[in-house]
């Protein structure tokens, strides 16, 4: 009895080709002398021989066409949003350029005007505060334009100012403004990179970002740079995430970059 019990656990792996050559030989020898085990194996192989065949599966009518129609139906509104946002993106770039000009022109005044190299200082020693001010000023201006518009669904996503987003010192103020107050795409400069959206995830989100290498990291956040296509795919994954999140509807032009900030 004990003998056969020992083989019971090996019969399925034998049937399924999952045994080592040594175990295989042992089981084959046992089958030669045990009709009961042989019967089990024979029946399992008979089941296999008569098992339904995937290729004989009768598909619902126009299955593939229906799948593709759903894909196209989901892509269409997104493309429309992208086109709209593309125009807004140009507008944002113009605003950004205007902000840069103001900062560069204003810098000499704030630096006392005594240094001849004031404009250069604005671009070097004063670069961090200047960028911070720039990001803040630009987004404030856009917020003013869109005041009173309905809130979008990214209530928890916030636009970071330049300091934490750059990840260099991590000492800046994190939240400058809320996405919910401004449905326009964001032009946001971080270390000479312009992002159109910033997506904030709780610490659980780090698993979803495992395939990416952080562009920067400090004590409180990790930051990743994603293409719009990657960000779109991330949003899809977030829809089934166990942690709470809110997503922007359409990250927009395929040439844009999205900054993902994951809390630690």
């Amino acid at each position, binding site marked *: *009895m004990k*003998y*056969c*019990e*020992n*083989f*019971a*656990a090996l*019969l*399925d*792996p034998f*049937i*399924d080709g*999952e045994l080592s050559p040594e175990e295989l030989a042992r089981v084959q020898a046992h089958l030669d002398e*045990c*009709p*009961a*085990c042989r*019967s*089990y194996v024979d*029946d*399992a192989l*008979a*089941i*296999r*021989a*008569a*098992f*339904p*065949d*995937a*290729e*004989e*599966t*009768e*598909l*619902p009518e126009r*299955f*593939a066409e*229906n*799948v*593709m129609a*759903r*894909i*196209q139906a*989901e892509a269409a509104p997104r493309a429309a949003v992208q086109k709209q946002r593309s125009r807004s993106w140009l507008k944002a770039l113009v605003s950004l350029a205007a902000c840069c000009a103001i900062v560069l022109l204003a810098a000499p005044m704030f630096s006392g005007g005594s240094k001849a190299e004031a404009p250069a200082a604005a671009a070097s020693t004063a670069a961090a505060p200047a960028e911070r001010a720039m990001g803040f000023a630009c987004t404030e201006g856009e917020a003013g334009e869109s005041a009173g518009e309905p809130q979008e669904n990214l209530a928890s996503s916030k636009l970071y100012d330049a300091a934490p987003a750059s990840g260099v010192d991590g000492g800046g103020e994190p939240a400058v403004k809320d996405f919910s107050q401004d449905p326009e795409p964001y032009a946001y400069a971080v270390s000479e990179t312009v992002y159109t959206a910033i997506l904030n995830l709780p610490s659980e989100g780090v698993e979803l970002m495992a*395939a990416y290498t952080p562009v920067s990291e400090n004590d409180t956040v990790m930051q990743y740079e994603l293409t719009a*296509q*990657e960000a*779109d*795919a*991330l949003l*899809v*994954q977030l829809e089934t995430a166990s942690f709470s999140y809110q997503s922007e509807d359409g990250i927009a032009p395929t040439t844009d970059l999205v900054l993902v900030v994951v809390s630690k």
Partner: protein
Amino acid sequence: MMEQQEQKWIAAAQKGDQSAFEQLVRLYEKRVYALTSRMCRNPADAEEAAQEAFLAVWQGLPFFRGDSSFSTWLYRLASNACVDVLRREGRHQSAVSLDNEDAAIDFPDHALSPHDEVERSELRRQIEEGLAALPPDYRQVLILRELHQRSYDEIADILSLDLGTVKSRINRGRKRLRKILLESGNFSVPPASKETEKEGCK
């Protein structure tokens, strides 16, 4: 050669080529529907789950790094889609004891016409009924093993189970299915020539 073609379609679809993705849908549609049609309770749910699986593939392609094979990933998404569909409709079968009425699913009969296939066809019909009567966890591993010819490791990967659980479910599922077929008279009663049969190999 087919594998090379599949890799080309995958690479193109990752870049957003919908026609390449349609080729992948056509390549795998029967295999995916073969799974969802046996895991869901009716053809409408089965079609929805299969569609959801392919949509999830399309949406996840930018993230697909090839750590698992494409088919393993696809079957995983199809399995998940079945669970989602059943859960959405509050009809997840795990906690349900299936009786014969529940098992009577109106799926197309795969009867084969040649006369010498009649016996096998009858056995196949019984297998379908037996599968439908199995608990979903057992049915799922048997379908992946017998219909999709997945190895134990691949099944563990698809279903996010450890190898021991896969082995155990295959063993129990196969025994239950065999018992059903024995009771329906499809298999002859196994020889009781040795006392061992009653203990270890039943």
